[in-house]
């Protein structure tokens, strides 16, 4: 398993075992089994299993709001975009804030291929972002800053292809879509480690 994969598992184990400890040790708490699910909560002793407040969310409603993209590509929409198409998108919507080559600013630096240890400043896509899917998740949420959400899925894939190409991560003829984007190998993929600060005497 790759290093970051091990990191992720460790985080999950912490989360799961932690819940177990809470279940065993939470004084005055109520452990409720609802629909086969174990959830700990702190509620008045006479609280019903369900309050039935709120409304069921339809699949359509969930689909309308669920815009997150996972590292394995889950959540990526259909569509596609090439490096060449992305150049136009980038120059139209991105260059004013990120610079013509993704390094000039004034906002966040997007292009950086320095080795980590040489890296002077700025968390660029090429040397710090661990997952290419995060580009789609973030651009769809928040970019362009003054008109977020204006890009089509095709435009978003295209501009991601262009940004990755500027970082030397995909070739000039690359096309990004729901299959190719999660497969891009990111140099910083294995750099991230679990937070080892746990209180007590150790300074970390």
């Amino acid at each position, binding site marked *: 398993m790759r290093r970051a994969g091990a990191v*992720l598992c460790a*985080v*999950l184990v*912490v*989360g799961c075992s*932690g*819940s177990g400890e*809470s279940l065993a040790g939470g004084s005055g708490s109520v452990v*409720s089994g*609802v*629909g*086969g*699910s*174990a*959830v700990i*909560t*702190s*509620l*008045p002793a006479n*609280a019903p299993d369900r*309050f039935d*407040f*709120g*409304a*069921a*969310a339809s699949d359509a*409603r*969930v689909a309308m*709001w*669920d*815009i*997150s*993209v*996972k*590292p394995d590509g889950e959540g990526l929409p259909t569509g596609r975009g090439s490096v060449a198409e992305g150049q136009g998108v980038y120059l139209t919507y991105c260059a004013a804030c990120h610079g013509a080559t993704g390094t000039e600013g004034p906002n966040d630096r997007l292009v950086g291929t320095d080795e*980590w240890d040489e890296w002077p400043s700025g*968390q660029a*896509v090429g040397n*710090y972002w*661990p*997952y290419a899917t*995060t580009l789609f*998740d*973030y651009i769809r*949420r*928040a970019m362009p*800053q003054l008109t*977020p959400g204006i890009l089509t899925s095709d435009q978003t894939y295209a501009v991601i292809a262009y940004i990755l190409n500027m970082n030397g991560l995909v070739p000039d003829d690359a096309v990004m879509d729901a299959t190719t984007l999660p497969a891009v190998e990111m140099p910083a993929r294995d*750099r*991230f*480690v*679990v*937070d080892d*600060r*746990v*209180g*007590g*005497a150790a*300074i*970390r």
Partner: protein
Amino acid sequence: MSSKDGSPISRRAWLGATSGVVAAGLLKTQADAFKLAAQEAPAVASDPTKVPGRVTSELGQRAPAEQPRRLTRAPALSSSSRTPLQDLYGIITPSDLHFERHHAGVPNIVAEEHELLVHGMVDRPMVFTMADLKRFPQVSRIHFIECSGNGGGAYNPNRMPTTASPQSLDGLLSTSEWTGVLLSTILREVGVSADASWILAEGSDAAMMSRSVPLEKALDDAMLAYGQNGEAIRPEQGYPLRLALPGWEGNANVKWLRRIEVTDRPTMTRDETSRYTDPLEGGTARQFSFVMDAKSIITFPSYPYVLPESGWWEIKGLAWSGRGKITRVEVSTDAGRSWSDAELQPPVLSKATVRFRHLWNWDGQESIILSRAIDETGYVQPTVQQLWEARGERTRYHQNNQRAWKISRDGSVTFGLGDLI
């Protein structure tokens, strides 16, 4: 105050005229008197015992001479403003002085139309209105929120001028009484899959700010907060609904909350990969570094205060830990050579700021004072050298090293980290 023809009326003349009105019996009722007082009372009376004061009002105001302000950077959509720690008493931050950190400005949200979608690995995907959420059993808890980047200037002496105040150093820290519903209550309502281990929290701002949070925290003490210090949460703090994660870095306390997705892995959003991660020596970076370690800062004396004379002064400050209660705060007045226990002012609450005080007889000589907090896990607020040794000098967040102030012989106070290293 001016007369009908625009010429100024002296205070004595006004009093005389008012007395005349009263003497002439023109004030038929007490209401007439209040009306007159509201119209005519001078803003500042030289002797407030001789002039009726202002009548009641629908909304209170600060005393004219007391106008604490947040410290703002140049206007930007992704920006921050800082709480004036040196101007405040006690532990509660007035809501209009709570620090700000926005990633795409403060959205205008109509509470009546706001909804929270909870879905993903749940038995029943649900949508809750604010009225729905307020109907669930309610809790109120006092907790600090601190930006993980708070105090970055104290990590590198070259980055912070000596004329730095507690506000400019550490003003991305505020404490409120938060009211809302425990997230565990909502997750119980929708039924969480036994295989779930994370949630994604998403805001309704123009950045749709998103953070993954371990389910363990969501089921522990996480709140969906709609109240702040007795009133609806302020727009800058997430109106009408924010995630409150006691003790965890501010950005994970997602504001303007509109969606919670229950998952079995982190989503790896931009703000938990490219941002809010901590580069270490050796080419790694710490990720999901949620907890704010124990920290303290002396807020008096501090820049820009000046001690006018030697003698007895009370050193005052704030201490807090994201891991629980502060158990002790120590103060040094000799640059860290010796330490004394400061008094902790109750209440001492878990994951909340606590006020500490230490009475000090200043001899008028140049002095460096500093504080260090100790929490219930036994963690001692480190020196900057200890942090550099543990992390290197590249981290931009979680810089909780001890803060020092230098008191010069003329009584002026300056940020003193540089004098210790």
